[in-house]
């Protein structure tokens, strides 16, 4: 026991605690280290709100593109390197081009026996007056088959992105809920001038498109260009008269079936010609007299099939972009 300090003061010192522990009177861990029962959590709405605000403020600061200096620096650096890369690429390509064979020359590697045979025997072997049509739909038909499926798969992806579907209960899907349902309320605008001009132009445009498709093997044109023209005609009609009118003859179902039949026909016809070609069988498809409208074997029906697919696809793209369904 210390004599110098009063007992009360002494009880607060470290020495007192130490000696009492030595004497075994007190276990310092007891009552100090054990878990105390936790306080019941009381949600404090004000504090919560403040925390949320702080969190948002931090995020705002971190993702503030204009004032985040590190990000800005990175952005500059990225821009500078990409510009340098592009200049380098340009220089490289220009040097390359200066070493390429001269444009317009008749004697160069491109003008070899391949092109010669397409020109010289194309008429006889494919029956098509348009050599390019003969080439893409007969000699190199596999590319074109792939190409029409590129268009098909692109439509499928656009459908996935933009088609507004309802689920079985008829509610709009929650995944696409933030999309504007449609803009049908804004139309038809009943613009007299537009409707008048459209009623003149649409038949002409569509007939012109049909002409391009049917003449694909005889002159400039073919399924892709003709189909695009018809698609443009349909879009003009839609803009003048509104979805109500077009849906009488063209809905998604029509699109689905036209696409299905055209592509199936394309696939089957080409499969037949590939199969007979590879197995050296005689193809039963007649070539006809070159120059006549019904000639050149499969090229005309294939052009029609491609034209239908392209026309429908162009229209479908437009309808999807416009209101997400048709």
């Amino acid at each position: 026991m210390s004599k110098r300090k009063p007992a009360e003061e002494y009880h607060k010192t470290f020495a007192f605690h130490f000696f009492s522990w030595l004497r075994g009177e007190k276990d310092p861990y007891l009552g100090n280290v054990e878990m105390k029962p936790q306080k019941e959590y009381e949600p404090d709405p004000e504090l919560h709100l403040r925390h949320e605000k702080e969190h948002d403020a931090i995020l705002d600061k971190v993702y503030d593109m204009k004032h985040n200096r590190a990000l800005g620096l990175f952005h500059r650096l990225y821009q500078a390197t990409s510009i340098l890369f592009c200049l380098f690429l340009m220089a490289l390509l220009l040097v390359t081009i200066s070493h390429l064979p001269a444009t317009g020359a008749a004697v160069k590697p491109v003008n070899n026996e391949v092109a010669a045979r397409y020109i010289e025997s194309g008429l006889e072997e494919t029956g098509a007056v348009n050599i390019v049509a003969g080439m893409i739909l007969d000699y190199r038909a596999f590319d074109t088959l792939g190409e029409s499926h590129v268009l098909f798969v692109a439509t499928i992806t656009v459908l996935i992105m933009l088609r507004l579907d309802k689920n079985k209960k008829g509610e709009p899907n929650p995944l696409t809920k933030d999309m504007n349902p449609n803009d049908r309320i804004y139309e038809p605008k009943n613009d007299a001038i537009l409707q008048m001009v459209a009623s003149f132009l649409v038949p002409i445009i569509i007939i012109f498109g049909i002409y391009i498709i049917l003449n694909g093997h005889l002159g400039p044109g073919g399924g892709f260009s003709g189909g695009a023209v018809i698609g443009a005609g349909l879009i003009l009609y839609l803009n003048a008269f509104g979805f109500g009118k077009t849906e009488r003859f063209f809905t998604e179902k029509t699109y689905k079936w036209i696409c299905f039949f055209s592509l199936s026909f394309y696939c089957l016809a080409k499969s037949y010609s590939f199969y007979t070609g590879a197995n050296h069988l005689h193809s039963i498809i007649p070539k006809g007299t070159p120059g006549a409208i019904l000639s050149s074997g499969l090229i005309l029906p294939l052009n029609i099939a491609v034209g239908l697919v392209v026309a429908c696809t162009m229209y479908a793209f437009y309808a999807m972009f416009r209101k997400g369904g048709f």
Partner: protein
Amino acid sequence: MGPNLWINYGEAVAAILFCIGFTNLLLQTNLIKKIIGLNIMDSAIYLFLAEKGYIAGRTAPIVTDGVTNVEAYINPIPSGLVLTGIVVSVSVSALMLSLTIRLYIRYHSLDLDEIAAQLKKEGR
């Protein structure tokens, strides 16, 4: 530098356009401008191909008056390749535009960086 840069001026223009399109696709943050860059890039390639097929003084490869002489027509192959390429580029543009529409409807912005920032803020 090789000897043919001035003769091949069409290809040179195509290469410059290609690089402009490439830079746009790489650098622009605005999605619509990116798509424009993509289309410039593809068109440049078609210009390049068209130049490849051209032979001075010959006509388009459509048989006229039954003449099937190589001397009469230009090379038909690049024309066919351009046709195929155009369809591919139409499809890709449509796909990109549909993606852009969806992003715009959701985030009210065409700026890819801004959309990325909003996405990170959402934390999903």
